[in-house]
């Protein structure tokens, strides 16, 4: 198997095994559950404010998985070995991002359906919400790779990475929330696809550059 394939496979397996995918899902559903708890039982308020919050919960859920993405590799020496592979580091970083999308991003997008319903989104919108979340996850992960790479050597970097990455999450969240509110769905989806493409193309390059410096 190629270096890309084995990197993807290992990361996917490590994330998936041990209830890996279950856990971000629980985080996601738990966080969406907190929203109505905090907001109280006012139906109209929830219907107006709720669906966009699915996006915030999704962003925070994927953020939580990003922290240790490269930190673990740095601490146990696996990063050194990645740099000795004939495959470019960019490709391996992309493989890790793809594994994260498959193991966590896609399940999260699917879980967006019940979450959106619980937060009173109209049923007809649910497929669009799921599609937009799937694209948004790709954008989040592409951007998140950079944040994870630059904070890899910081212990307890989880909060630092949030600080670095959350501002970049703003555009997908704005358009994604628009989808959840049923505004200009098609154009918002197109913009999200653009975000995802750009992030997935540029993210691994910037992340690999940062990782090379971390290896010093």
């Amino acid at each position, binding site marked *: 198997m190629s270096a890309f*394939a084995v990197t993807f496979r290992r990361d996917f397996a490590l994330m998936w095994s041990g209830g890996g995918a279950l856990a971000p899902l629980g985080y996601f559903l738990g966080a969406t559950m907190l929203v109505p708890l905090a907001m109280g039982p006012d139906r109209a308020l929830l219907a107006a404010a709720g669906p966009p919050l699915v996006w915030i919960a999704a962003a925070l859920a994927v953020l939580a998985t990003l922290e240790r993405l490269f930190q673990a590799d740095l601490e146990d020496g696996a990063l*050194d*070995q990645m740099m*000795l592979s004939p495959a470019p580091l960019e490709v391996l970083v992309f493989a890790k991002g793809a594994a994260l999308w498959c193991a966590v991003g896609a399940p999260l997008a699917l879980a967006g359906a019940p979450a959106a319903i619980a937060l009173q989104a109209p049923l007809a919108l649910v497929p669009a919400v799921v599609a937009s979340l799937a694209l948004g996850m790709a954008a989040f992960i592409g951007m998140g790779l950079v944040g994870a790479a630059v904070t890899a050597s910081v212990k307890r970097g989880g909060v630092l990475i949030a600080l670095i990455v959350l501002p970049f999450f703003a555009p997908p969240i704005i358009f994604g929330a628009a989808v959840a509110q049923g505004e200009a769905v098609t154009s918002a989806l197109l913009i999200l696809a653009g975000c995802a493409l750009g992030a997935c193309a540029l993210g691994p390059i910037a992340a690999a550059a940062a990782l090379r410096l971390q290896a010093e």
Partner: protein
Amino acid sequence: MPLRLVAEDVSVARGGRLLFEGVGFVADAGDLVELRGANGSGKTSLLRAIAGFLRPRAGRIAFEGVEEPPLALHYLGHLNALKGAASVRSHLSHWLGLFGGGIDEDVALERVGLTRQAKLPARVLSQGQGRRLSLARLLIAPRPIWLLDEPAAALDVEGRAMLCRLIDAHRAEGGLVVAAVHDVLGPTPSQTLQIGATT
């Protein structure tokens, strides 16, 4: 061109402090260069500079007769690069894919003495067993240059003998080894480099 590793007048600094300067050696196929020096003298830093992980402050490190790293070398550091949740065998197939084929996984496992642990997760390995698994990486993909940082750490008596055999075989096949050591490694080194002896 035959295999050759040349280090010329290398200085390495860490965190703004110069560790050593003017270190140089030439190693050819079949050579074993031993790096010796007190704790903190810079052996690990020199090995990482050769591997290309860190940039020396001055000097030249050149490879002849091979592609540039990463393709030409293996680096075995203080860290074993193991994932606790992954099985012993899956580490080997991972490295096989990462570095591009070589010998069979089972053969490598047998040579480092981990055949019976093949299915265990790396997490439960003892210190020495973990080191052995990391050594198996050297076998999985044949690469001419081995950079070994205290390779005998945590190995038992039998494990050290095994390491000697691996190094001897590698040298006999025209490989080249640079190893940082504190006590006697076993195989006779072709040269010994004292790092930071001046201070």
